């Protein structure tokens, strides 16, 4: 009897140390992974704040001895992207002009598509949805040639509206998918009740479904903004010198330095290019997950 109680007393203590040890291992592994991922960002930041002299003579991961913002100023308004030397500023503005309308239009159209497919069953609805879904999985590269042809035929090749068009078309598959999955969980009796009340197709969408959709609108906007802002392939294929987005400009800055590579300017330009999506994630990131898992209607 005594032996039994002794082993019982020992076992919890052992389990306790075992647990603590595991905890430590877990945290150490997590910290290592975090460092691994954050190190490039750290290096970028510190490099952008150093002078070229310091970069050449100093350590890669050392903190700047003298903090200077000269590289940032150059990156913003003086760096050369090919022939022009205006920095990333005009191209940053191009990206804004492309991303904001494209996000808004693709979200609105996706909402309407999702609403139709989920709530108004018509012959071929499932086939239609499957085709749209298929579109999500077509790689960018496959679309390049046909899209170039279409843009040429419409007279929009190399223009900002042309790029907006491309991004809206390409994003429709995803946005329809998001909204359709969200609306499918709304009972069809809601549409029936509205029909009996006299509301028509657009009225039901505007007064009943859109107000319910905030979680999935947030998800779609975050997703689309990130995709469109970070896109390089469409940007480089369908724009010309004045209409390039910031991702293309960044590539040009890095590739068109003659003589000494101005690492600090390149780093500053890269951070400027990536800042909007980073900010979107920091501010609204948790809403992304919440929105995806949100239920829409109770009762």
């Amino acid at each position, binding site marked *: 009897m005594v032996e039994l109680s002794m082993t019982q007393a020992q076992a919890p203590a052992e389990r306790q140390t075992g647990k603590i040890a595991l905890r430590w291992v877990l945290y150490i592994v997590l910290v290592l992974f975090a460092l691994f991922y954050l190190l490039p960002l750290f290096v970028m930041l510190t490099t952008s704040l150093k002078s070229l002299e310091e970069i050449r003579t100093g350590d890669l991961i050392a903190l700047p001895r003298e903090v200077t913002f000269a590289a940032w100023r150059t990156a913003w308004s003086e760096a050369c992207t090919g022939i022009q030397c205006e920095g990333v500023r005009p191209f940053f503005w191009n990206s804004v002009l492309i991303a904001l309308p494209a996000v808004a239009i693709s979200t609105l159209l996706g909402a309407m598509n999702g609403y139709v497919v989920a709530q108004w069953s018509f012959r071929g609805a499932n086939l239609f949805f499957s085709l749209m879904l298929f579109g999500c999985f077509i790689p960018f590269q496959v679309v390049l040639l046909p899209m170039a042809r279409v843009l040429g035929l419409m007279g929009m090749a190399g223009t900002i509206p042309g790029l907006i068009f491309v991004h809206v078309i390409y994003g429709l598959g995803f946005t329809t998918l998001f909204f359709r999955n969200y609306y499918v969980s709304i009972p069809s009796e809601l549409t029936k*009740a509205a029909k009996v*009340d006299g509301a028509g197709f657009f009225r039901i969408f505007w007064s009943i479904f859109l107000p319910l959709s905030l979680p999935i609108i947030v998800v779609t906007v975050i997703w689309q903004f990130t995709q469109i802002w970070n896109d390089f392939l469409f940007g480089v294929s369908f724009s010309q010198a004045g209409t390039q987005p910031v991702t293309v400009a960044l590539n040009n800055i890095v590739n068109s330095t003659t003589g000494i590579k101005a690492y600090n300017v390149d780093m500053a330009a890269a951070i400027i290019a990536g800042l909007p999506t980073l900010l979107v994630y920091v501010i609204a990131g948790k809403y992304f997950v919440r929105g995806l898992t949100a239920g829409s209607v*109770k009762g």
Partner: protein
Amino acid sequence: MAPILEINNLYKSYGSIEILKDINVSIEQGDFLVLVGPSGCGKSTLLNCIAGLEPISGGEVHIGGRDMTNVSPKDRDIAMVFQSYALYPTMTVAKNITFGMKVRGVDQATQEKKLAYVAQQLQIEQLLNRKPGHLSGGQRQRVAMGRALVRDPKLFLFDEPLSNLDAKLRVEMRTEIKSLHQRLGASMVYVTHDQIEAMTLATKIVVMKGGIIQQIGTPAEIYNHPANLFVADFMGSPAMNLIPAKARSDSAGTRIEIARKSGEPMVLTDRKNLSLPENVIIGVRPENIADANAQSGSDSQEADCVIDIVEPAGADTYAVMELGGKHVTARLHAETTASPGVMQRLAFDLGKVSYFAPDTGLRLN
């Protein structure tokens, strides 16, 4: 006066599957029609066809004397209450109720007057500024009824409105719906799978199975004179006892012989001379089998039966025995002396029995 609702030869198919076959029903102003049947019998589909939410494949629907077969739901002068209430989640109760009026362009003053009247009728005045998410099940149901009431329609349609409520609330709301019907004198069509709701609420019941109407009648007719085996078994709780028997006409009337596992068959004599086939199924409700005593009526026939199981249920005691190879339940008084394994003298009220043909299931008497 024209019937408030008239359905003529209605057929409904989804592709090649026939959901409703040759439905003919009509009700007068003030009637409470209940469509009852097991899951999948087509009652909700029929309701949706009446509402115009589903197109029909054949036949006609007339509401208030007008042919509404091709008219959209909003012009049919109907209102509908759904099983899941279907309240607009982002609008307050007040906006939920006035949404239909807003869509039709009714002016603000009339909207407010009607809203106040309905809120007072259903006692939901204090809930007007809340959203549906902050209401209990019973409150949501009342708001859904308010939304229907405010339309002042010719016909109210209810699609299993009480199925989502707990048992106690269901009984309360059932009484409220019945009192609403009496107060307003409105015409209502109500779908349910619960035969107790059907019996308590209806002035007219339609029993459906497999898309076909089994019987139309008042609750008393359906209960006392079921048209076939399905209706006999479906309506009434506990279910009617359906016992296979042999029938033979003789000088005393009709001799009914029911086989028993203890060898000798039980013999009852029905004084009416019915021309029954040799093999019948006799339907007796549990309350028509009672302890034999001086109060048994003139149609009662007494017999000794061995009781298998006794189930005391408070006000009554159910005694289960085996007759004709089936379990037969009798509803006895709580103070009965019946006990398991003991022979008990029971009286069968043959004035209230139904006879069915075993092959077709149809009623014979």
